[in-house]
């Protein structure tokens, strides 16, 4: 098997939530626990879940914007987490991030031109003329006029700013882009524009994406493989149509049923899933989902289900799927595809 572009192995990150000034009591939040997946070159991988499930922390940990506690992130076999500052700088040219909020993602005090030239200048990528040419190209690529370079972020709409944010991520010509809810702050018609833009870039440059989203529709449209996260852990992973058409994990099913579809004949199955997402400060024992699960069994309360590979490209962590269905493998060793 060839090395995947990105290989995430057993990634874990805990935060210590301090309370009060001197830090009296402190509590540990398991933001990400034992997360593993891999992304091939040119693949769009989706990470889906509700707020607080750890999907954003996972995305940031890949880029080492937060330092994970344990695990490994391999970019074409090179460990990002072990890289020294010099190597890390070099690695960062190869992976970039696009943010959700087009307003906070651009420095209001810098022109678009400054924002786009700065990364290249810092990495010493060529002469002023070369940099200029690159900026011109990247602006054209995201569908912005060249005179945008002279303007400030506040002169643009949310959709245009998102294009500029994408241009900034592209300017170093990365191989991987982590897109953290890239369209959820935008209007429906603008969402579609940005998704079409991203799809075009992916195909043109054979870019890999880790797309983080709470919107199943966006993931289904953009991704080929998806992992579903709940309270810091991946509960199900597989190819896109299959996961949404025949979800295995009760949580995936609930998420799918609750996701509204623009068709009055397919109404949201409302209110079936009782209770709220538990606090990551005190996740329920056993399977974190068991207090809300319609199929809860005795074992679910005590034991976290192990990862079950139900098909070569599909796995789930749920006691409903005993190890007999597929070949049980550890999450770490599970191949991404």
């Amino acid at each position, binding site marked *: 098997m060839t090395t995947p572009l990105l290989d995430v192995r057993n990634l874990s990150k805990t935060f210590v939530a301090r*309370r*009060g*000034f*001197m830090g*009296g009591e402190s509590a540990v939040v398991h933001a990400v626990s034992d997360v593993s997946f891999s992304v091939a070159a040119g693949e769009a991988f989706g990470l889906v879940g509700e707020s607080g499930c750890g999907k954003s922390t996972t995305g940031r940990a890949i880029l080492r914007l937060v330092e994970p506690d344990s695990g490994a992130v391999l970019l074409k076999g090179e460990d990002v987490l072990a890289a020294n500052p010099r190597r890390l700088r070099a690695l960062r040219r190869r992976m970039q991030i696009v943010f959700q909020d087009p307003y906070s993602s651009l420095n209001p005090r810098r022109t678009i031109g400054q924002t786009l030239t700065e990364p290249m200048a810092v990495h010493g990528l060529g002469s002023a003329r070369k940099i200029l040419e690159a900026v011109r190209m990247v602006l054209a690529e995201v569908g912005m006029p060249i005179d945008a370079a002279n303007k400030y972020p506040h002169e643009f709409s949310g959709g245009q700013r998102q294009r500029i944010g994408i241009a900034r991520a592209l300017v170093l010509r990365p191989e991987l882009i982590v897109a953290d809810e890239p369209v959820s702050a935008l209007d429906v018609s603008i969402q579609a524009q940005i998704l079409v833009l991203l799809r075009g870039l992916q195909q043109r440059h054979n870019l890999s994406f880790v797309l983080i989203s709470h919107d199943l529709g966006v993931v289904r449209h953009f991704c080929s493989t998806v992992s579903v996260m709940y309270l810091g852990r991946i509960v199900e992973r597989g190819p896109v149509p299959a996961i949404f058409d025949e979800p295995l994990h009760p949580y995936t099913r609930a998420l799918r049923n609750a996701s509204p579809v623009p068709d009055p004949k397919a109404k949201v199955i409302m209110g079936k899933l009782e209770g709220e997402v538990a606090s990551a400060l005190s996740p329920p024992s056993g399977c974190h989902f068991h207090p809300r699960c319609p199929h809860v069994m005795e074992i679910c309360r005590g034991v976290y289900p192990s990862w079950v590979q139900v098909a070569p490209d599909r796995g789930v962590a749920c006691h409903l799927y005993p190890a007999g269905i597929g070949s049980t493998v550890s999450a770490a060793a599970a191949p991404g595809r």
Partner: protein
Amino acid sequence: MLPYIVKRLLVAVPTLLAVLTVVFFFVRIAPGDPAFIILGDQASPQALAAVRHELGLDQPMAVQYVDFMSTVLKGDLGTSLVTHRSVWGEIANVLPYTIELTLSALVIGVVIGLPLGVAAARHRNEALDYAARLFSLAGLSFPAFVSAIMLLLAFAIELHWFPVISEGRPGDPWSRVNALVLPAVNLGLIMVAYVMRVTRSSMLGVLGEDYIRTARSKGVPARVVIWRHALGNAMIPVVTVVGLYLGVLIGNSVLTEIVFNRPGLGKLIVNSLNQRDYTMLEGLMVIYAFFIVIANLLTDLTYGLVDPRVSQR
């Protein structure tokens, strides 16, 4: 609320210790030999050494430090180098004057400034608002001694409404109140300006918040929206500013006491400075810092009262 109070108290202790440490070193790194200053330049070396010994200045710094901290923490501020009376006794004599002055200024500031700020915010960009803003600009601009001189000139010297020396006669409560009026008004008006401006801007911010719209959408009368829903939230920055302003208030009280020739910590500190009364200065700094630490503590506790998010974490 109780754990919050305990926590804040525990935080105040190290601050106080650090403040005492600063006081100790501050007085000791200043150039000039206290013994020299006390005895004058004609003094014999033996006499100087005797005084140094008496003051403990011949001890190593660490010993002096431990000595200083332990006596101060026992509540003993030492004896004045000049009058040879107890520092605490001297301070206690004039302390009530300063306390009644600053407290009445605080009351004037809050009682007038708060409603004025609310009214200015409600009537934004109307005549009342402009008048209030002009007043607050004036309050910010007047150095306390300039306004004090003007008040003195107008109401004591020209109109004879109030005494020129604001001490009051002992055993005559009315004369003491009469003597307090001008100095308190002087400090109070400046305080009004600060409280008014922060209340106004804080109210303007709060009035745009979603929960104000919620209150209006459920038909709560405008008056109640302002005083219960808006002011409750607008108080948070007001408390901060009042707390921070106490340092300025104490400084202004020094100037006010000088102009009105009023007994108090201000006159005491100026006299001690002129006489190089080091132990007295140390004592005064300890008392001032102690007040500010207490004031900060009260500010924090007020936060807890005003904002449930602070006390119930």
